[in-house]
Structure formats: C-alpha cells, structure tokens
C-alpha cells in the first residue's frame, strides 16, 4: 500500500478523508451516507517507585462510514470502519458498506443523514472563537516530572503507605471530522491531559489501595500533582482496618466520586432508544417527578469546564443546553434523530457515533446542581448510615431498576464517621433511590465530563454481617 497523500493526521486531513469517503459511498451506490474520520495521537508515561515503568505512544487513524440504500420497502443501511485510509481503501470500504446495506432489512422509520438541524456558519465561527483549539500543553519530559512528583508525594505521605501502583500521566489530541451526503461537513480537535496515582497502605491481608485522578482539556487546568497525591494517600490510609457492618436499612451517602455512577444510571434509563424498546424502568416517566423537588440536572454541551463540549452531535445536529431534571421532574428523554422520529419529539442532539455501528445516544457534560449543605453537615444529619467512597460490580438491572452493588466506605453513627467499612453490598431499586434522595451536597465536583455533588439516599439495604 502506498502512503496516502490524503491522510495528514490533523483536522484538514480528517476533513478531507470524511468528505472523500461520503463521495466514494455515493459513487458505490449509496443514496445517503455519512462518514467520520478520527486521528488519535498521544503519549503516556507510568512511573512506579520513583522509576519510569512504561512509556507509550499512540498514532492511530480510523474512518467509519454509514451508508443508506433505497429498496422497495424503504431505506436500509449498514456501517463499517477501517484503518486503511488509502484511496483504494476508501473505495473498498464504500463498496463493502453498500453491499452490506443491500442485505440489511429496510426500516420504514430509518432516518438518513439529510436535513438535520445543522449549526450554520455563524454558529461554527462563534463556537471556534469561544473554544479555541489547542494542544494539551505537555511534553513527555514534563509529564514524567508530573508523574514522578505525584507518586513521590503519595509514597512519602505517611509511614503507613507501604507500596505503590504508580502514577500515570497522559496527554494527546484527537482530530475528528464528520461529513454527510447532504453537504454538511465539520471538524474539531480535542486535547486532554490526565494524571492519576494509586498507592497502598498496610500489609498482607490488611492492605488497602486507593487512588485519585484528574483530567482536563489543557495541562493548566489539571489539579496540582501533590494535591492529587495527598488525596490518594490519605484515602488509602483512612481505609486501614476496614471491616463489614451489620445488615439492615441505612442512609447511604454517595460522595461525588461515587455519585457519578447514579448519574450514569439515570442517563442510561432516559436513553430514547431504550425507551422505544421498553428496556428501561423510566419508559413511562417523562414529565413525572422522579426526584424530590430540590434535584435539578443539566446537560450542557457548551460549558467553560466541560470535557465533553460539542457544537454538533454524531449526526451533525446542533447541540444546546438542556435541563434533564427540572426541580425533580424528568423533562423528557435523550434522543438521536431516529429515536426522536419514533417518539414523535424533536431530536435533542444526543446522537453518539463511533467509527463502526449505528448512532447511539449519549450525554455531553452533565451537571447535577449543587445543594446547600456541605458534606459534613449531611453526615451530621444521619443517625445510621454509610458514606460510600468505592463501588464495585455491575449489579444494576436497567429494565427493572433493581440495584445491588459491592461497596466500601465509612460507617456513620449519630452524625459521626465511626470507622472504615468494606465487604458489604448496598441494594435497592433506582426508582425508590431517586425518590428517596434526602440531601444534595454543596460540594459539586467534576469527574471528567460530569459534575456531581454528594447525594444522600434514605432507606437502602446494607448486606454485611
């Protein structure tokens, strides 16, 4: 294969690839098509016990195509991805997708990439002004220094820190271009830098591990390495001596780090495609008060601190800020154009598109509006409960809302943290858990693209001793 003149790994290169791919699809017989081209370049470094443990470098590029063909019974489509970005590779991919689309079953509700509510040129220009694209601002040498300093601080935090899983620093840039056969084409670049550290306190069967991580669009937005290190180390030390607690009902206080998972369960349950197929316990809950009235949650694709900012979604639909839960009430479902068509609503700009596959549905930046009490005040309000700092397992049934997960954290008795806890589960049903929220903390914290405060839920079941 000859090197392709088409594929410089930047915006221009990806833009050209996506447009050529759409043209190739039309030439191969597609009635409509849309294409994605993605280039990832990045570096990461891991250090452990003061030495470099691994250095990694990525250099990847992929193209993805969705093609629709007309049949007697409506439009049928297929999709495929490839890493072969040569002219011949593009043509072969187009032929492959069109031939697969001819085998797919037509769907009378299919929504081809035509006539989406695209952002106009003015919107694009204004966006680019407000969100200037830039590199993550790290070099490998700086990243190594950051990781080494972070790990060193964590290891020397306390004599009870006995071992280290190391610190990782990574940075990179992704260039994405989208083009559709209705003539819309747009691209963007997104950089990120991240730092994480994980250390172990104690020995033998009493060992406890904990971690801290942070990710930002630019290194200047990263949390201080030593601050991160102290968090990881103090968390690990505070877990020493963990043991189970008594089975029974308890108030469960999710700190922001674990409360992000509750947000994930909500988003999964209001996915328009899941609603269509009745695979969610919230299928009939649009417009209902599923939370207490002090809960409001927003999806904001244009936020100063957002890691998931976007002007348009995976189908080129313009994105806009949207309140998902308004004073306890579920305002509607998240949709792509297909789900919106079937649910007879407007597309909310939540189409997500990978290189392969149909569109799926996903959020941009999620913001759970902070409450008034700080975490300490919430703890003081709890007579018997559990502060959850770690969750493990996948015991959530999205169809019924039944919830049962492994947990670790701290026992709360009479408004005070008493001791660390592990080896227990917390269980309930998400519908009851959402309705049973007693407090929302003032400590809203960003984890990646979600900002979440502490959340206290009454009436959950703890299984332990």
């Amino acid at each position, binding site marked *: 294969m000859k090197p392709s003149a088409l594929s410089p790994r930047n915006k221009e290169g990806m833009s050209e690839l996506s447009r050529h791919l759409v043209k190739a699809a039309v030439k191969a017989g597609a009635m409509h098509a849309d294409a994605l081209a993605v280039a990832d370049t990045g570096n990461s470094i891991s250090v452990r016990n003061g030495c470099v443990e691994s250095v990694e470098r990525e250099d990847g590029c992929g193209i993805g195509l969705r093609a629709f063909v007309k049949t007697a019974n409506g439009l049928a489509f297929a999709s495929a991805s490839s890493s072969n970005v040569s002219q011949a590779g593009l043509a072969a991919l187009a032929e492959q997708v069109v031939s697969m689309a001819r085998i797919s079953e037509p769907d009378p509700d299919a929504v081809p990439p035509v006539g989406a509510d695209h952002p106009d040129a003015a919107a694009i220009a204004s966006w680019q002004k407000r969100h200037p694209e830039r590199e993550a601002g790290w070099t490998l040498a700086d990243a190594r220094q950051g990781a080494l300093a972070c790990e060193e601080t964590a290891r020397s935090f306390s004599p009870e820190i006995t071992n280290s899983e190391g610190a990782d620093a990574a940075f990179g840039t992704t260039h994405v271009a989208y083009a559709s056969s209705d003539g819309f084409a747009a691209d963007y670049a997104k950089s990120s830098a991240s730092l994480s550290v994980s250390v172990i306190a104690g020995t033998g069967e009493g*060992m406890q591990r904990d971690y801290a991580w942070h990710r930002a669009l630019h290194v200047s937005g990263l949390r201080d390495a030593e601050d991160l290190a102290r968090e990881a180390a103090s968390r690990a030390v505070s877990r020493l001596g963990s043991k189970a607690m008594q089975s029974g009902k308890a108030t469960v206080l999710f700190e922001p780090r674990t409360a992000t998972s509750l947000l994930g369960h909500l988003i999964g349950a209001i996915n328009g495609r899941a609603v269509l197929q009745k695979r969610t316990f919230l299928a009939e809950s649009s417009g209902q008060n599923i939370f207490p009235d002090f809960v409001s949650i927003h999806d904001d694709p244009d936020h100063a601190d957002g890691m998931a900012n976007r002007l348009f979604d995976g189908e080129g639909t313009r994105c806009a800020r949207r309140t998902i839960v308004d004073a306890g009430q579920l305002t509607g479902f998240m949709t792509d154009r297909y789900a919106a068509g079937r649910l007879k609503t407007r597309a909310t700009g939540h189409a997500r598109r990978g290189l*392969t596959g149909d569109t799926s549905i996903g959020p941009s930046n999620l913001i759970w509006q902070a409450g008034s009490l700080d975490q300490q005040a919430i703890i003081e309000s709890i007579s018997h409960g559990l502060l959850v700092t770690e969750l493990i397992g996948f*015991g959530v049934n999205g169809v019924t809302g039944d919830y049962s997960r492994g947990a670790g954290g701290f026992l709360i008795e009479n408004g005070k943290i008493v001791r660390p806890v592990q080896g227990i589960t917390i269980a309930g049903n998400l519908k009851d858990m959402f309705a049973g929220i007693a407090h929302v903390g003032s400590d809203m914290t960003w984890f990646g693209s979600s900002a979440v405060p502490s959340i206290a839920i009454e009436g959950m079941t703890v299984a332990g001793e």
Partner: protein
Amino acid sequence: MPSQISENASNALPVAPETLHDMLNRMLPPGADDGDLYIEQSSSESLSLEEGRVKHISASTHKGLGARVIKGEAAGHAYTDRFEQASLMEAAMAARAIASSGGKQDPVAIHDSRPAPLLYQASNPALQVPLADRKILLERLDALARSIDPRVKQVFASVSSSFSDIHIIRMDGAHIHDARPLVRLNISVVVEENGKRETGGAGGGGRFSLSRMLDGDEAERLVREAVRLAVLNLDAKAAPAGSMPVVLGPGWPGILLHEAIGHGLEGDFNRKGTSVFSEKMGKRVAARGITVVDDGSIAERRGSLTVDDEGTQSQRTVLIEDGILTGYLLDRQNARLMGMTPTGNGRRESYAHPVLPRMTNTFMMAGSDAPDDILTSLKRGIYAVNFGGGQVDITSGKFVFTTSEAYYVENGKIQYPVKGATLIGSGHEVLQKVSMIGNDLQLDPGVGTCGKGGQSVPVGVGLPTIRIDELTVGGTQT
C-alpha cells in the same frame, strides 16, 4: 533468514521482512531484556436484530503494528497503523525511548519459530456463512422467541465473528504466527406481564466456525434459555440480605474463580506485591480437595490461544492444588523479573495495547459430591446458577459477582426465584469456606470478556457445583 518469513507464514506479512529486521535491530538498546514487533490484521462482522428486523450490519477492518522494548521493570510501547517506512521507524524509536543510552544490540536474525499445535482453524468465520443466511437465521430465532411465550415483547439477537491474523517477531529473532477465529451468538429478550417487565439473556461462542455455531440446535437452545430466564425473573422476589451459605451451579458461576483468585494471581500484581496473594505461594488458600487451573490449550474454547501475544505456547497452569497456592499467571517480563517461567498468559487486546498477564480458561477441577446432595445440604441459603458480571479489588481481595438466576432455598428445597443480587466475599477466604465439590465440572458456553487496564480480552471459566458455607448476599430482604 528474513526472506523465509513470507514463504513460511500462512498469511503474508504486510511489511517487508527487511524492514522488520531493520526496525528490530535499531530499536533494541544494549542491555535490553526483551522486545518485539506485533503485527495484527483483523476483521470483524456483526449482524443485529431488534424489533423483528436485522436493521444493522456492521464490519471493521484494522491493521497495525506495535513495537515493544523491555528493560528491567520498564517497557516502552508504541504503535502505528501507517505502514510506510518512516512511520514504522518512528514507532520503533519511540518504543526505544524507555532506554536512556544510545548504541545497538548485537544484530538479530529473524527465523521462523517451531509452530505450536493449532488449537483452532486458521480461517475467517465470516467467509463460511453468507451474510444473507446469517440474517435469515436471526429472523428465525426472533420468531421462535415470540412463539415460545406471548409475554415476549422484545427480542435482541446478534451474531458476530472476528478473525485476527498475528505475526510476532521477537528480540531473539523468533517469528511466530497465529490466526484466531472467534464467533459469538447472543440472544436477549424483554418480557412483559401486567405492566411488569423483565429481561433474560443467553449466549454462546468460541474459536470455531460460524456454521458450527449456527447450524445445530445450539441457537434454538439459547433462545429458549433467554425466554426461560426472563419469564422466571417476572416471578422473582427480593433476595435476602446478609451472610449465608450459597450453592453455586456448574459452568458460568466459575466467574467466582476469575474474580476471587484469578486476577489476584496475575504476575504483575504479585511481582509488585500489590495483590492480597503476594505472600501466599505454597500456603493454603483453599479447602482441601480444591484444584484450580488456567488452561489456554483447550481446543476451540473462547479463552484459548495456540500461542499468547508474546508467542509463548499456551499451557495448563495449576494455580491451586489441593488447596495450596502453586502457580502464577505470567507473561515474559514478569516471569523474568520473578525468576519464573512464562506460562503463556501474556495477552494484549490489539497491537495498540501493551501486554499484560491475563487469564485464559480458568476453572476448578471436579470433586466427588453429587450435585443433588450439595443442594439438599442447604438449610437456608441461596442457590445461584447464572451470573452477570463481576469485579475484584486485588489489593483487599474483595470481589463481587451478580446473580441473574438464583433461588432461595430452605431445607434443601428450592422455594422461589430471587431478583439479581450481588454476592461479595474475600478472594483469600472464600475458597477456604468451600465444603462440598460436585462431580459435574462444566465450562461456560463461551461468553466471557475480561477487562483489565482498559483492555478487553475473551476468556473462559468453569466450575462444578460447589457449596460455600458463608458468603454475603446483597439483597434487600432483611
């Protein structure tokens, strides 16, 4: 001789042998302990049915090269999917960045390695059954599910296949080739009765042909199983909360072993002393009579590999023998650093990922108890025969796995099905509480995927019926 590569490999190398030779010799610094080039060409196809229609067919084709240099505890890894000389050399030199000093290793001559016995056919499953036939089959399975029970409201069925062609060229000059097929059929249904909905699923697969997956009765059996589970769960009551005896059924409940001990015995965690099992080699970690193995050399299993991703031949590794910890799962780097022999467990998701020690097929050998006797022994507890996923904290040893088919049992008799509940225990303790081991070892149907360090690889598990005297059941009934 570099020129031998293209002649002897069953699939042509996408890079000129001279280039590979040049890369290997330039990227390895003096004193390097190991290093390799990993070239992967993979393709996959998937058809999915929902709402009665195969609405979507998807495919992917990827090709790339990963370069690795290993020195002591450090590893450099770089990958590219550009195959022109400059990009390849750039990747090789980036992998070398791990080494601080310049200079060159002695020249390496590439030679074909003696092949390991093949555990699966080197042919692409996607070429065996036409897409149109796969589509018709899914439509038939949809109709079957709806005909079995009128409460079936939604059917999701998918059939997917992949084929990876891999060349590993190691620092010692060995060139190893493997070609790995993988097929998978998945069914899930949503049932509804009086406004109450439940879901059930079943799947199967392995490293064999699509025709074998689709032609026999297996596909229909999976449909019946998915419907049975969904309908069963309509009547499920709240599971109990607390510590109690648990009987695990045979097969997929072997996920217990994967989470409770498998991860904790991976070489990297033990070399670093971060696993709760780090100091336990030669010590008792399970009851007498318990033997647990990891075996990547079983023909056509989902977790099997002719050779691992470093070219080491797969083997049967005894992890626990009669209750005593006897083995770790090792890749080349961790084996060398621990003064042990690689066990064929060095795996990577793709050329874009580094190698980690991983499980293959992990299972417990059969005992002598009759499964019925084990269930009958349960005074009050849970009988769990099917599970969803699990997870473990290897440092504290705490692990979880979540039931998808389980029953409340009293006086040895099944009382009623219970809702999905997470079971939690300690990896270093749970197998010491096993008091009965069935004679009915089964391997799972070929559905396992293991995640570690952001990488997914196919794995298998297996278990005979066992009784655990005490495990915490995460229900809501107190």
